[in-house]
């Protein structure tokens, strides 16, 4: 309870030192599943040290879009992406970009907590191991501890690192997944409805964590909860029926949206 109170008290939308440096920008991005056009002409910039939330009714294409940012859609045979997504000046869909390398730089947290059926330690250590990040055992231990600390999980699990990650509670599992994503020191973290399977207390902890992580990462979060978008993000983009309808500062979107559809959605008339 104490933690939740803290989460609610923390000034989530308090503007930190915002650098207006763009990390990722999408230009005319469209996605096709076979013949079906799931997403059209998306143009959006994601800025360093900011949380951008993607909102919109079910099936609007926001999850499809976030999965373009680390080329997770490559694993779906029928999926085709057009347009360009520029990260640090390079199109991530160009031929010379290796999706495996890209995914090490763009971490992802999924809707349902999906820890590996391995120990807590191995869950975190897996990424650093396959990327050869630790040459000595001590370094790996340090990465594991640091990642778990960043995810606010260290105090809860430090005495049972050898126990399976699947034995944790839902909220802890999701923080474990966040720690796993952090462990490979990505630059961007994508979160696809990270709190949809969690209770309000666990949700509050994750939201608090997202705000802390913002200091070091560029964060994109898909959420169904408009309250969550308002709490955690600095910028918000509203998707509807495969179109990016409106984007802007979160405060602006939620108080004075320009588009009627956005207004209808945030006031609960559609969606």
């Amino acid at each position, binding site marked *: 309870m104490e933690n939740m109170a803290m989460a609610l008290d923390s000034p989530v939308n308090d503007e930190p030192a915002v650098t207006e440096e763009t990390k990722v920008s999408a230009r005319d991005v469209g996605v096709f599943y076979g013949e079906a056009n799931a997403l059209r002409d998306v143009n959006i910039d994601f800025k360093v040290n900011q949380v951008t939330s993607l909102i919109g009714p079910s099936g609007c294409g926001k999850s499809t879009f976030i999965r373009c940012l*680390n080329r*997770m859609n490559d*694993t779906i*045979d029928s999926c085709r992406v057009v347009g360009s997504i520029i990260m640090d000046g390079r199109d991530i869909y160009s031929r010379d970009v290796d999706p*495996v*390398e*890209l*995914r*090490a730089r763009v*971490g*992802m*947290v*999924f809707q*349902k907590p*999906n*820890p*590996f*059926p391995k120990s807590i330690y191995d869950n975190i250590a*897996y*990424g650093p191991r*396959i*990327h050869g990040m630790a040459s000595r055992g001590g370094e790996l231990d340090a990465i594991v501890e640091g990642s778990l600390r960043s995810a606010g999980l260290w105090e809860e699990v430090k005495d049972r690192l050898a126990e399976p990650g*699947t034995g944790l509670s839902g909220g802890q599992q999701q923080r474990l*997944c966040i720690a*796993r*994503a952090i*462990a*490979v020191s990505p630059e961007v973290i994508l979160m696809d409805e990270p709190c949809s399977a969690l209770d309000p207390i666990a949700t509050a902890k994750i939201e608090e964590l997202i705000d802390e992580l913002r200091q070091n990462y560029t964060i994109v979060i898909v959420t169904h909860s408009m309250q969550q978008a308002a709490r955690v993000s600095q910028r918000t983009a509203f998707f509807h029926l495969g179109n990016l309808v409106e984007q802007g500062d979160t405060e602006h979107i939620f108080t004075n949206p320009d588009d009627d559809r956005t207004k209808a959605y945030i006031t609960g008339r559609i969606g």
Partner: protein
Amino acid sequence: MTDQVVDIRALKPDLSPERISRRYAAERRFRLYGLVAIAVAIFMLALLMVVIVSKGYSAFVQTHILVEVTFDREVIDPDDTNDPEVISQANFRGIARGAIRKMFPEVTSRRDRRQLYRIFSSEIDFQLMRMARDDPSVIGTTRQVWLKAGADIDMLTKGFIDRDVPESNRRVNDKSLGWYDRLDEQQLVSRRFNTTFFTAADSREPEQAGILGALVGSFLTLAVTLVLVFPVGVSAAVYLEEFAPKNKWTDIIEVNINNLAAVPSIVFGLLGLAVFLNFFELPRSAPLVGGIVLALMTLPTIIIASRSAIMAVPPSIREAALGVGASHMQTVAHHVLPLALPGMLTGTIIGMARALGETAPLLMIGMVAFIVDIPGSITDASTVLPVQVFLWADAPERAFVERTSAATLVLLVFLVAMNLAAILLRKKFERRW
């Protein structure tokens, strides 16, 4: 849909006791069907086991007759060398026959004596020779030895020969019966554990026939099968499930794999005969060829089982691995394969159990031959358990009936052991998430 306007609030659910009790009755009926089905299955299984055990258990004991044998040093080893070579060359037949004659001094004619010797197994010479060779201290002494009785006398003690049948139709004539009864009265007849059954290979004489040759043959054959089928089956499944593009060609391959799984096993035997024996000229009747043929036969089953095990790995684990930057290969090797392994092992062991029970394809490659030696390598001529059952079931001697059932029991024990191993392996490697 319909133009008719229905006021749903006016339509109350029918919660009358009759309707509810009908629903419960339907449930009870359904459970009853299930119980009946299981009861029938258990009854059939029990019947099978009762029939096999009741027919086969007598093969595990063998009639022996207590005979006073004089191991005459003059006959066996006159120079007192204790050399096994010398001892094994000695005339133990003479010693055995002398001992038998001493028990029945009144039998003098050649014909009667030959008949008298037939009460005992022709193997008793070897039995005595082995005794003397393994323990030379018996040489020069007189010992009470349990000598193995012949198959007909064995059948008589086990009650399979009817004394009321006229002598001309009986395997044991009146004279032999008289001798046997005399031995029995003196309490010189006993049924003892039949070690030969577990230590010998096939023989024309039922009392000398054993299961070990077929057992070793089955083991060698299955070893060849496993070595071939597991790596190939798992690799094929992993490739088809994880790496192969989904197109017309993979569809054709999939259809063909499913078809191959349903091909009658004798067709694989024909293939083995035509390709491995006639074309590659591999040795006939060998576990090597049997193993290859059974590997071809079980391969589709194992590919199908392995593919469904891979398919059952939740996509969220794949996404998690890809999400931290694992390559496709790493995702498969580190996460998908370990999680699919229990299913693959189960599929493999069930496939192997099927191969263990397979007879037809092996008939085509000559493993149905009569082989009296225990095979020492995968290129030696051998037979396998189910083929041994088939051979003994075909044999005319009454004593092979019980051995057929006993061999079936041994086969069943191995099948149960393999299926148990499948369950234990699955339990051991199973990981929950």
